[in-house]
């Protein structure tokens, strides 16, 4: 994908944020306790999401972004995981403090999630109609069979599934990946939640379908005002669909800000390295630049900056003390001792 950071799309979507966020995450921590030790999957993550805006969360595999998503809806793997602090405020209510029963009423209704692989997301032994019906009836048992069917059809239409009546009788194995992902989207949006978490929604789709799907999400957002958290490892997707982006590394957010700012002016060496490693169309370079080294094991993390061992700009201080988040410019912040001087700046 070409460098899209200078397209009008990236610049123009400066967030339709209304100022009062639908979701506020404060210092969220999720640790996993296994026989290999304590894994600090999510280690103090804070961000907010406004109504109608799309926040991208980008990072390599192992950065903790999927675990972050699951933490928001409290579906981290039991019994290994435990929430060790923080708050997740949805419309003012802390989701972490609710009873499981309450949480279940909220899941799928006020906050929804789409998973990565559509081939695996739908249960192969039940029809689409059955699964869609379930999504609807679980939050409103008083609905009659006919009303449920109407709402199912409406949900399918909202994601532009053709011939919805036939779709209801189909089974997942008869449908394409893109179609399945749409249906998953329909189930997620059935009650027009305030927040939709999309965990790598296009990664498992054909390239030709990916753009289509992202546009569908945009469309849904325009119509319902849902706030979207888009988790991905692909900066192209960020550029195309997000208003703001948070870069995650080793369980923490290392940089956060509006998409244009991040693309033009990355203030964390990791962000810079990620941007640099994207394949650029038309570039003469023979080899892709990759970041040297491996992300650290989340079992034993250094007290200092976790990127230090791979960072070309690290100083001794970096390995000893974890840098605080430095505000660069309004909503743009980075956690690096050298974020102000930014010796890696592009221009």
């Amino acid at each position: 994908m070409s460098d899209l950071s200078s397209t009008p799309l990236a610049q123009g979507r400066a967030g339709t944020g209304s100022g009062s966020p639908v979701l506020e995450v404060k210092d969220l921590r999720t640790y996993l306790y296994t026989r290999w030790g304590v894994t600090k999957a999510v280690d103090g993550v804070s961000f907010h999401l406004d109504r109608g805006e799309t926040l991208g969360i980008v990072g390599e595999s192992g950065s903790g972004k999927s675990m972050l998503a699951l933490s928001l809806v409290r579906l981290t793997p039991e019994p290994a995981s435990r929430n060790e602090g923080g708050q997740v405020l949805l419309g003012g209510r802390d989701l972490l403090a609710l009873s499981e029963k309450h949480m279940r009423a909220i899941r799928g209704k006020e906050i929804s999630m789409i998973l990565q692989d559509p081939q695996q997301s739908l249960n192969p032994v039940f029809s689409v109609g059955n699964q869609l019906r379930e999504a609807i009836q679980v939050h409103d048992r008083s609905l009659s069979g006919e009303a449920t069917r109407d709402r199912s059809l409406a949900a399918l239409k909202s994601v532009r599934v053709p011939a919805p009546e036939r779709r209801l009788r189909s089974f997942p194995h008869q449908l394409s990946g893109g179609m399945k992902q749409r249906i998953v989207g329909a189930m997620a949006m059935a009650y027009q939640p305030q927040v939709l978490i999309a965990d790598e929604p296009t990664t498992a789709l054909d390239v030709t379908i990916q753009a289509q799907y992202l546009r569908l999400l945009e469309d849904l957002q325009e119509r319902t005002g849902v706030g979207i958290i888009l988790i991905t490892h692909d900066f192209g997707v960020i550029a195309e669909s997000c208003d703001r982006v948070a870069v995650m590394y080793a369980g923490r957010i290392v940089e956060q800000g509006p998409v244009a700012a991040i693309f033009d002016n990355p203030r964390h060496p990791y962000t810079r390295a990620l941007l640099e490693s994207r394949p650029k169309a038309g570039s003469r370079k023979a080899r892709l630049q990759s970041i040297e080294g491996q992300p650290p094991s989340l079992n034993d993390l250094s007290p200092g900056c976790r990127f230090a061992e791979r960072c070309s700009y690290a100083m001794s201080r970096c390995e000893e003390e974890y840098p605080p988040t430095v505000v660069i410019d309004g909503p743009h912040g980075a956690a690096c001792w050298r974020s102000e001087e930014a010796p890696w700046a592009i221009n």
Partner: protein
Amino acid sequence: MARYVAINAVRGLLTLFAVSVLVFFLARLTGDPLDVLAPVDMSREDEEALRAQWGLDRTLPEQYIAFLGNAMKGDFGPSFKYPTETAGSVILDRLPNSIKLGVVSTILTLVIGVPLGILSAVRRGSLVDRVAKGFALFGQSVPEFWLAIVLIWFVAVRWHVVPTSGITGWRSYVLPSIVISIFGIAALLRLFRSAMLETMGSEYVKLARLKGVSELKVIWKHALKPASIAPLTFFGGIVVRMLTGATVVEIVFSWPGAGLLAYEAANARDFPVVQALALFTAAAIVIMNLLIDITYAYVDPRVRLGQKAVV
């Protein structure tokens, strides 16, 4: 799906045919039944007459064809050991006892094995799980005949809770059915546990939770139904193994069923009964496998509807 059923039915018939041939010729290997059954002082003429009456004077292939022809009509010939009865009636006499025991054992197996397997998976790592796994290991390792004897010794003889042999009321069913089901329980337990663990870790179960579905429903509907498919494929093998176990159990408990009959008939060289029994058993197994195949095809929509894509 009709085609699928038809193919399997044909294969089953071929199997049955092969088994009948095998059993027939093997049975005839056992030597002359007259050695065992005819009185020592029988005259040669009477022997020849008896031989002719039983059809033993013809060549083997001729005997087989005659046998097959009659079998199709349901006539399996006279029992050599009980000349006043036909093989068919001797078997039918004893069969109900085996069926009763079999039904009780199957119920026991299903009622204990499946829930334990599911519970074991849902409460993975807990005490229930560890006990279940231990039991499963034991059940697949214990020699049934020995277990039967030990149980008889303890429960029947020392504690006088149940009778030691024969059928004298509902108590008689207790020990034999327990011994027969132990293997099945162990096997089903492991199968369901393994299948449930796999489905419970699946993405679609995660999605169901994300929709807000209650945990109970997630397990019962989303995890269990796909998980039931895999054990189905092994169910046939389990039943066959239990059938063999049942024969030994009948012998140990002197249970007057088809298994004990097989033992007696083989020792008495009662060909017709042995052949008929073998055919019945093989037919039962073939039919059971066919039923399992059909159930599998029906339960798994990918097989029922075929792999053709709609979109």
